């Protein structure tokens, strides 16, 4: 790269025009993402437009995808580079500019925070009924095949096989068990239909799935839509096949087989993360303004128990007042079942503090800069008066 080209590239990277272009692109992305939520749902639209480096358009009638617009990730990255480069180029390293340096640091931290959020944030749910105790959270979008050793009267050994492994349609050895699962088919979204008497062609020869026909459907991504996963699996243990089973989160009936005296249950369920503590919902409250049905407040009184820490305390979770515990934030999100079911959105984001820190930095930087300019003006005014 010649010095001239390098200089032009540096000028372009540090230009205000690039800043404005990036801001304009972000505005377009936000509008497009908002409109796309009608069809794709919030999660799907944000993934396509904001948390991507390129926005693709699928050529109708084909599986060919063409990049047509920079995604939020790319624009954010360029904007961050632009901000850093401009700061390095224009801002002198002096106490006089301390405020502006702080403001820029805050803005850069804001971008970094969004990247950290995009990479590491995990959102799950805890749907809990009054009187119920749960020690796990569930993913609203990911499923797993649960192989559960239910033999022991005191506890269950739960082995969760993520759907990404099922989709690869291979033989999966479940660590710590004598069981292998041969995956004979996996459906991201399916409809389960009653099999007519005498209807053949089912690969299933065990369990309630023998009476079920599976019809593949395209995946859905709307906020109120959920894919119904289905898979054909053949458990093999000790060199013996236990037949082919249909597992699906659309099948309510329990299914299990016995191997060498131990009972293994098979089911498809939302992906679970078990916690080293438990929550009991003592009371869910749906407060309304007097004489109306207008909601005033939603709150969940939960009992938090963590035997390892010797903790046993009550916590009130209400709107914008989450329980932060063990790296997770439990927000009041929804409710149901005649106000006896509380749904908590559980967010685990190692970078959750970064936006707060960046806001403090930006505010502090502006205050510092303002005070500096104020004192300088007062000083000049004082000098003028003295003259």
């Amino acid at each position, binding site marked *: 790269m010649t010095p001239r080209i390098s200089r032009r590239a540096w000028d372009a990277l540090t230009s205000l025009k690039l800043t404005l272009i990036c801001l304009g692109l972000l505005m377009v992305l936000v509008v497009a993402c908002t409109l796309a939520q009608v069809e794709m749902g919030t999660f799907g639209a944000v993934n396509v437009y904001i948390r991507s480096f390129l926005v693709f358009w699928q050529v109708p009638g084909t599986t060919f995808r063409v990049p047509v617009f920079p995604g939020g*990730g790319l624009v954010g990255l360029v904007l*961050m580079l632009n901000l850093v480069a401009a700061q390095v180029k224009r801002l002198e390293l002096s106490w006089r500019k301390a405020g502006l340096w702080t403001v820029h640091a805050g803005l850069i931290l804001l971008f970094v925070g969004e990247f950290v959020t995009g990479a590491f944030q995990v959102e799950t749910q805890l749907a809990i009924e009054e009187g119920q105790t749960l020690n796990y959270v569930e993913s609203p979008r990911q499923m797993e095949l649960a192989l559960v050793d239910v033999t022991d009267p005191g506890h269950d050994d739960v*082995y969760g096989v993520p759907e990404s492994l099922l989709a690869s349609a291979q033989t999966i050895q479940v660590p710590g068990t004598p069981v292998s699962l041969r995956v004979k088919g996996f459906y991201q979204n399916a409809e389960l239909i*009653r099999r007519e008497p005498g209807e053949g062609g089912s690969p299933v020869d065990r369990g309630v799935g023998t009476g079920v026909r599976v019809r593949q459907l395209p995946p859905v991504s709307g906020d109120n839509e959920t894919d119904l996963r289905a898979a054909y699996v053949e458990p093999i243990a000790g060199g013996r096949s236990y037949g082919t089973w249909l597992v699906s989160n659309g099948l309510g009936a329990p299914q*299990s087989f016995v191997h060498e005296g131990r009972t293994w249950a098979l089911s498809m369920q939302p992906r679970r*993360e078990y916690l080293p503590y438990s929550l009991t919902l003592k009371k869910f409250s749906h407060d309304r303004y007097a004489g109306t049905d207008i909601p005033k407040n939603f709150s969940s009184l939960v009992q938090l128990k963590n035997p390892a820490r010797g903790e046993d305390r009550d916590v009130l979770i209400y709107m914008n007042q989450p329980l932060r515990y063990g790296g997770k934030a439990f927000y009041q999100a929804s409710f149901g079942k005649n106000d*006896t079911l509380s749904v908590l959105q559980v967010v685990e984001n190692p970078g959750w503090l970064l936006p707060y820190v960046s806001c403090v930095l930006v505010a502090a930087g502006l205050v510092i800069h303002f005070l500096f300019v104020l004192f300088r003006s007062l000083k000049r005014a004082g000098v003028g008066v003295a003259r």
Partner: protein
Amino acid sequence: MALAAALFLSTGCQRDEITHFRADKAPQTTAARTVSPAMVREEVASPPPAATGSLKWTLPRGWTDSPGSGMRYATLKPPIAGRIDVSVIVLPGPAGGELANVNRWRGQIGLGPIDENAMAAARKPLKAKAGTISVYDFSSEGDAKTRIVAGLAVVDGNTWFVKMLGDASAVHAARSDFTRLLQSLRRDSSN
């Protein structure tokens, strides 16, 4: 910044390993299953694999029925206001066993599992032309109660479930008609 980009691109590459957890047999499971469409679908289960042994019933006055869609054998509708759903489901074989299904129903209204002895105490046998039907009646905790009344019958190797689930007040209003419906269950001689 390159690190930030790498972090960004690494999204979706997490948690692809098989997990293991030892969980106490505590009250848990199906509360979450009431809040998403998939979970509503979980209320239904699978159909008979064989042509033998279909059941018929006599509808109480004002009730209507319709063939089940998807996995349901039939959906019944009582003339009762409020949230109430009556379904007929038939599964091949023991369908996981009576205890597992009873605990599944209990889980659907947020109740914890029970053992064989407690199930036996909760079981109310009901005579019908199709045979003896095991009837269970459970209500949830809380101020606004949800109630489930379910009958289970084994006919020709298939397990039939007739289940009424909804607001406690609506289920209470339909309870006597539902009992008469269970008593009317009989083999369909047209098969």
